[in-house]
């Protein structure tokens, strides 16, 4: 599964940087995010709370709070840089070519309008449909996302629906204009697992049917393994590892990714002990100078603590931001990763950590 190969890249984010001005100083919420989304595929963005997943997606759509500003980078959609578009051009694109499902459906549905009115509005705005056609299409969309008795539900207000149904309505709205890209920010986090299973299945099915590309934001590695083709792992505002899904789970490179997988309690296998990552994520106001993971990394060296590593690409197109995988990592360094000593031979991007 090569990323660089022949696949058509529909969206490419390059070195994105987003800063918020706050009373206590600048917050570099996103500071070095790069990834590629091949057409028709799903890329997962994973990371712990505050790592910048939501701000990344809001930056792509340029929907930042007023104190936020994109200060660097490119967002190439079909080759054009979205960051160069006017607000007017962006408005036409949002909801139409790129649409989004948010973390909390209740806050993004308007409580004073019925479900039908809200879907219709999007259709009238973007598709120039008449009110009547838009209403008929709304019922069809509710049917498409598996809402029972859609002709009745279309007249409901959001509070009259269960959490799972609200999320289905959100999906129906986001599909209204047949988007090329769906950005889904934790669309199932607030739901029970049996309802989550329904929604994940729905997204997958719609993607196959409509040929959408999906950016799936989540902190749940299980959901990633199940829904995504590629993954970008974020830590402290940066993409720190990007690879195809099987490599990420079976041969993770970054000490942070390895640590995440070792911290995860699993329901499907017996595990003796969890191996937590020590310490806490850095405060956005006091980012470490070198590698942002260096204060917690069991392999950190002086180089890690003083200089920031860049994303390096290997021969498969997978990327990692870590000194171990560069030519600067000299000799045969012993890397003590979570209680196991592994030898990282200096082989630049080809370095592997043997099991």
């Amino acid at each position, binding site marked *: 599964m090569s990323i660089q190969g022949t696949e058509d890249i529909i969206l490419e984010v390059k070195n994105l940087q987003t800063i918020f001005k706050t009373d206590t100083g600048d917050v570099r919420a996103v500071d070095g995010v790069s990834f590629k989304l091949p057409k028709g595929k799903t890329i997962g963005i994973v990371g712990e709370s505050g790592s910048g997943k939501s701000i990344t997606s809001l930056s792509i759509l340029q929907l930042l709070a007023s104190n936020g500003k994109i200060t660097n980078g490119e967002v190439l959609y079909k080759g054009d840089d979205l960051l160069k578009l006017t607000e007017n051009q962006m408005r036409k694109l949002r909801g139409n070519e790129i649409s989004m499902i948010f973390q909390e459906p209740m806050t993004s549905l308007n409580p004073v309008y019925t479900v039908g009115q809200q879907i219709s509005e999007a259709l009238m705005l973007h598709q120039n449909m008449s009110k009547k056609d838009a209403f008929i299409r709304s019922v069809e969309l509710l049917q498409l996302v598996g809402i029972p008795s859609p002709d009745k539900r279309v007249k409901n207000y959001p509070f009259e629906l269960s959490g799972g149904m609200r999320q289905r309505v959100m999906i129906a709205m986001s599909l209204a204009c047949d988007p090329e890209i769906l950005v889904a920010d934790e669309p199932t986090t607030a739901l029970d697992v049996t309802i989550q299973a329904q929604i994940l299945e729905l997204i997958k099915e719609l993607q196959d049917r409509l040929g959408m590309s999906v950016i799936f934001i989540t902190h749940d590695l299980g959901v990633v393994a199940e829904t995504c083709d590629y993954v970008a792992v974020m830590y402290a505002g940066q993409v720190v590892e990007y690879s195809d899904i099987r490599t990420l789970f079976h041969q993770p490179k970054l000490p942070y990714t390895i640590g995440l997988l070792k911290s995860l*309690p699993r*329901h499907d296998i017996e595990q003796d002990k969890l191996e*937590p990552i020590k310490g806490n994520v850095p405060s956005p106001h006091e980012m470490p100078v070198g590698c942002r993971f260096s204060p917690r990394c069991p392999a950190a060296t002086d180089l890690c603590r003083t200089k920031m590593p860049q994303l390096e690409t290997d021969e498969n197109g997978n990327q990692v931001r870590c000194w171990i995988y560069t030519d600067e990592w000299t000799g045969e360094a012993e890397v003590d990763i979570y209680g196991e000593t592994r030898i990282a031979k200096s082989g630049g991007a080809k370095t592997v950590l043997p099991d």
Partner: protein
Amino acid sequence: MEKQELLKVEGLKQYFPIKGGFLGRTVNHVKAVDDISFTIYEGETVSIVGESGCGKSTTGRAILRLEEPTEGKVEFRGVDLAGLSKRDMRKYRKDLQIIFQDPYASINPRQTVASVLTEAMDIQKVLPANERRGRAEELLETVGLLPYQADRFPHEFSGGQRQRIGIARALSVNPQLIICDEAVSALDVSIQAQVLNLLEELQDEFKLTYLFISHDLGVVRHISDRIIVMYLGKIVEIADKYSLFENPKHPYTKALLSAIPIPDPDKKKERIVLRGDVPSPIDPPSGCRFHTRCPYATEKCQVDVPELRTASSMKEGHEAACHYIEEIESGEKQPNY
């Protein structure tokens, strides 16, 4: 060694009145917990799992009498807590502690950590007053914080650290049973693993018994000895950890387990997707409460309430409440999706 009963819950019911009309009369009840019984033995970890609204947190709160149970017995070392006067109950408060999901909400933001801890000791008259500060600092070390942090305020700590403060507060009164209500649910995995390991170490060190309430089956498999599965106010299955995950018997347990995504892209498994949403606990389905979503349901299920029982293929202590355990096992009954 004989297993010692620590807590025995019998026929516990918790109904919440729904007021209606302009007179504000009780027009109906939410049957949050509806006649459940189970026993917890000393030194073990029992978990209650289930989806939102199944009654797992309510059960924890009823045991502690944070809400007065509608009916039933809660015996702690043979004494029925539910029958005690408020005053007599206070004596037991120190034996049974609770840690909540949101450590911030349960800690007074204007109190330093030291005063949060010494206050708890003061209320329960643990240690002479002049030794409490020293004990507070010791407790902070026990939970992996530093003694000098005793004079800091809760907002100066991260989520994981605040959860450690919550644990230190629970420990400060030398409890025997700690109820952990979604205690690690809000934490990021790297921090969650730290806190889970801490809870396990403390259990060994202080011979603690845990009642762990969680919707996260990964966490539950990791921490528990035995597991209780609830659906709409009822227990549908109880089993030791291994039996529950490797040999689940109730169709709801099976569906629940199959719904959890596995963090391994090569492990694709059969998913049982349940129809519809969980029904309202105000007017729960008759018969087996799961019958509206169960792929095996028959007319009998709509009428007869299944009791918890151990079929011949199940280990001792493993019980499930389904009419058709044997028929589903033998393949005689096939699911109807």
